[in-house]
């Protein structure tokens, strides 16, 4: 394991106490008896979301997203020249960096980018690529930096939505937005927009299927640009879960749209840019 020598490291073999916490011998059910989840939601209820485009003032485009305790911030820089060593590509390129803040989850994350983070970055990048007009920014690259401030489940889907708003906010031409959503299936129960607890909760019988499905969806083109399934599902169930996720994405779309509209209006408002007034007077 390579270490970053410029930072002060904790003891070599220290572990979070969370890992040693006594767990109840009986597995906690995903659903309480009244059919509610641990956080009080019903299985098909999604968490309220907060979106703010333009949260980072120095960046070309940015977005902050909150889904209760899942908090993600994303900044977009560029388009800029591709460094020569990366080789020549005629179309534009997206370069995505995904990072958990070290304190984001229950177990501390390292400073160096882990394999999981690299994999999530790739998922976000591949989810956005079909939506961005890469031929309009030839020979240049767009940097997308995603930081998860707090992780309470559905991180990938939040990152996809957040990054696509940030790219749109940066004024980079896009065919469509990309909205992410995820669900957790335990046996016959579907839990939309799972929290970290929902994602790891185990079902009582070991025969039950347990899977997490994440989807990135382009709502006006009706195309799926990201689809990840972890765990076992029958082929038909897998498609049903995808369809369910897509329906959720469509519900998010209106909110995302409003958020972008607001950020554009702000740009045009006379208080923010007095220059606009000059020709009129």
């Amino acid at each position, binding site marked *: 394991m390579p270490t970053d020598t410029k930072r002060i490291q904790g003891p070599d073999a220290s*572990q979070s106490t969370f890992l040693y916490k006594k767990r109840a011998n009986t597995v906690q059910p995903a659903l309480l008896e009244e059919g509610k989840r641990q956080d009080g939601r019903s299985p098909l209820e999604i968490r309220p979301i907060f979106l703010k485009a333009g949260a980072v003032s120095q960046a070309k485009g940015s977005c902050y997203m909150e889904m209760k305790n899942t908090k993600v911030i994303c900044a977009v820089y560029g388009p800029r020249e591709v460094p020569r060593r990366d080789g020549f590509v005629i179309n534009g390129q997206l370069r995505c960096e995904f990072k958990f803040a070290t304190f984001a989850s229950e177990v501390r994350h390292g400073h160096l980018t882990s394999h999981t983070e690299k994999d999530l970055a790739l998922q976000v990048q591949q989810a956005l690529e079909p939506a961005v007009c890469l031929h309009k920014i030839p020979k240049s690259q767009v940097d997308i930096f995603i930081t998860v401030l707090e992780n309470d489940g559905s991180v990938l889907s939040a990152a996809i939505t957040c990054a696509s708003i940030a790219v749109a906010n940066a004024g980079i031409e896009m065919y469509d937005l990309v909205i992410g959503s995820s669900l957790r299936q335990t046996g016959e129960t579907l839990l939309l927009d799972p929290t970290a607890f929902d994602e790891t909760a185990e079902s009582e019988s070991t025969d039950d299927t347990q899977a997490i499905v994440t989807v990135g969806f382009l709502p006006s083109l009706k195309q799926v640009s990201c689809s990840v399934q972890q765990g076992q599902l029958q082929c038909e169930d897998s498609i049903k879960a995808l369809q369910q996720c897509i329906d959720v994405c469509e519900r998010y779309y209106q909110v995302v749209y409003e958020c972008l509209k607001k950020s554009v209006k702000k740009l045009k408002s006379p208080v923010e840019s007095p220059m606009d007034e000059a020709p009129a007077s």
Partner: protein
Amino acid sequence: MASIQLGEGEKTFIIHGICKDDLRSDGRTCLSYRNFELECGVVSNTSGSARLKLSNTQVLVGVKAEMGPPNPLNPSRGGIEFFVDFSANASPKFAGRGGDELAAEISNMLGLVYKNKKMLDYKSLCVIAGQCVWTLYADIVVLECGGNLLDAIALAVKAALYNTRIPLVTVHKDMDGTEDIDVSSNPHDFVTLDTKNLPVLVTVTTVGSGHIVDATLEEEACSMACIVAAVNKEGAIDGMVKKGSGSLTIDSIYKMLTSAKQIGKDLNKSLDDFLSKKGSDMSSKGFLT
């Protein structure tokens, strides 16, 4: 992947063949798989190994079983880890750290599939709960890189795990209560792994409006998106990821998954048949005998 350059004309030729005539440049139909060559027990210093050659793709998998402290989250469960190494023999691009990104992508995909508790009997890999468990290190060396690398690797991994022999260990308590691990000195005392639930990966690649399995490098160059599905012998999907920079409609995903399911079932069946005959072979001799 180690991509190759194709002219527009060549691409059109391949796409037209697939969309209109259900015919590919090597004479196959869209959903037919190539024959592959599989050999088990090829490396004597491993606990289990396999070599697979699928046309121009060649991979070698060695599994080593080692004992160590468990993950504190799962104190009574062993584990499996994947490391992919791209040999610079396959392409000069892979020299130094060249293949690292692709390697991480592949080991993450395998990790995602094997994370499921149903895959292997991870509990049987526990020696002393909380103190000592078996960890299987599956090291994958890519010797030649033609198309369809992921499928080839998954097949070889399953074969190598079938081939794996874990030495028999016994735990006995000393007088003062400390537990002692004893490794059997008889080389014929070993346990094998139950691989009947292990899936194979099936990559379904979209080319034009159609989709194909077992794509060659040329066909991969014509494609924008593919779906990698892990399919077990009953046809259930053990994991699925969309790869590539294109997007797909839900209908085409459904069609692709259905094809993957069928192909995966067939592949599993032929692999299991082979493994039950030759999978526990340990006496590969090389070319000298």
